[in-house]
């Protein structure tokens, strides 16, 4: 346990970008819940859940808890796909039926996974894919060397 290597090389960028997204999602959802929870309770709750998962994923990547990283990053990919699809095709389900399409990504009800993360330049959609590729590569390398 004590000899886990810290992420090296480009993987550090992944940790840094995850950290930025974790801060962004946490700050925004915390503010939305404190300031205007009643306006879109389901969307803001999902947003808070996403924020917690980003924080755990960042720590799992930074401290090489690979299983936890697989679970959290996989959950993120699922989350952004499901919530992304709901916000486009069935906004009523997440309580955003009254909100105009562009406002679901950029307006005051916007959350990190809405419209596949468009409000965050689609980083929430791309990042878990890169994260899973990185974890998969690490596992193959470990199988060869260890």
């Amino acid at each position, binding site marked *: 346990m004590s000899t886990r290597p810290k992420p090296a090389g*480009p993987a*550090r960028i992944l940790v*840094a970008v995850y950290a*930025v997204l974790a*801060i*962004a999602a946490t700050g925004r959802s915390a*503010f939305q819940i404190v300031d205007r929870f009643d306006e879109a309770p389901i969307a803001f709750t999902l947003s808070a859940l996403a924020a917690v998962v980003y924080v755990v994923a960042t720590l799992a990547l930074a401290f090489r808890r690979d299983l936890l990283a697989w679970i959290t990053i996989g959950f993120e990919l699922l989350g952004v796909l499901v919530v992304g699809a709901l916000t486009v095709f069935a906004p009523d389900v997440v309580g955003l039926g009254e909100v105009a399409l562009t406002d679901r990504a950029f*307006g005051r009800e916007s959350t990190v996974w809405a419209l596949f993360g468009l409000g965050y*330049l689609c980083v929430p959609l791309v990042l878990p894919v890169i994260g899973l590729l990185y974890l998969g590569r690490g596992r193959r390398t470990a199988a060869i060397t260890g």
Partner: protein
Amino acid sequence: MIDVFTVILVGAAVLAGLLCVVLGLLGRPPADLSVLALVVVEVLLLAQVVIAIVAPFSGNPPTGNLGEFWVYLATACLMPPAAIAWALTDRTRWSTVVLGVAALAIAVMAYRMNQIWNVQLG
């Protein structure tokens, strides 16, 4: 808010971000140039803090949510020191890219801050 200042802040952050990402990908570890680029962004952010405190008293009140604005600004101010601390402890080329990522994130946040200040969202 002063729109011209937001343009300067976003422009400086984007330039600093691109510079650091390019330097990092060229294999340069963090050096005076890349760290100073982030220091410039931090100084501009602190100027933004002063502007945001003074503006409401000089006939330029926010129309959006002031609390949300300050959460963004405070977080943005903490990012250059965090990125520079990372760069000082881990002296590889990837730290230079991390400096760039921080600057680019600040550019997006500064754009959002201007939106929150100026746009009445209901």
